[in-house]
């Protein structure tokens, strides 16, 4: 079971969000990731480790390379939860639509 706390902490960092955005385009290696971020490989490795622990990405071994990619399960979990939040807020605002439809503008008297 993935922890959403851990996942959201992992997402709290802009570099890690950027890494995920890059991985959304496809599998890549740490070397390739380090390049556009102008960060050292160890620095990127630390971010990767956080994302991996949060269940957001997975790595596989391919000879000497260890490419990373998005972990569908982790992403789905977050998507599902975000969908729930969206739905709850959408419900509130749909109710507000009804409230507004039932209101009439107050007549304002001369003064303002």
């Amino acid at each position, binding site marked *: 079971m993935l922890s*959403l706390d851990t996942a*959201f902490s992992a997402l709290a960092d802009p570099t890690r969000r950027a890494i995920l955005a890059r991985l959304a385009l496809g599998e890549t290696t740490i070397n390739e990731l380090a390049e556009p971020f102008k960060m050292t490989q160890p620095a990127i490795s630390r971010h990767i480790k956080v994302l991996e622990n949060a269940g957001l990405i997975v790595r596989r071994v391919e000879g000497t390379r260890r490419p990373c990619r998005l972990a569908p399960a982790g992403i789905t979990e977050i998507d599902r939860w*975000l969908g729930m*939040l969206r739905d709850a807020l959408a*419900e509130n605002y749909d109710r507000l639509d009804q*409230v507004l439809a039932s209101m009439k503008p107050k007549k304002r008297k001369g003064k303002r």
Partner: protein
Amino acid sequence: MSKMTLNTEGDRHVVVTRRFAAAPELVYRAHTEPALIQRWLLGPAGWTMPVCVNEARSGGKIRYEWTDGKGGGFYLTGEYVELVPFRKIVHVERMHLPAPTPDNLIETTFEKDGAGTLMTMRMTLPDSETRAAMLATGMEHGMEASYVRLEALI
């Protein structure tokens, strides 16, 4: 097609927009008059807001209490920072679960948009960790969803 957008901005913000088919004056009133607030700011089905204190003036107090009718519930307190009638509300709020969450500074604007209103709600949290924690808390306490929208950047 959705009338609503929800985005994170930078490390500390959450921004929600929503269009309404009513003039800014009405949308503003629905956010500041208790009798109206109690009709919609409820979160998941089955929840009600038996206590709604809303002193719509600078420094005025806010207190919303929700219950699920089955012994579950929690509340929110806040203070108004600034109100520009029918156009803008700035307030601070925190949830009590029962320990208070860090303050959330929220600026809500109501702009005329054709015959309706474009509402923009911009939340500012103390830091990125608080934003993450607040959103995670929202999962256990669905009512937080009334205030929080987040769209994955992924």
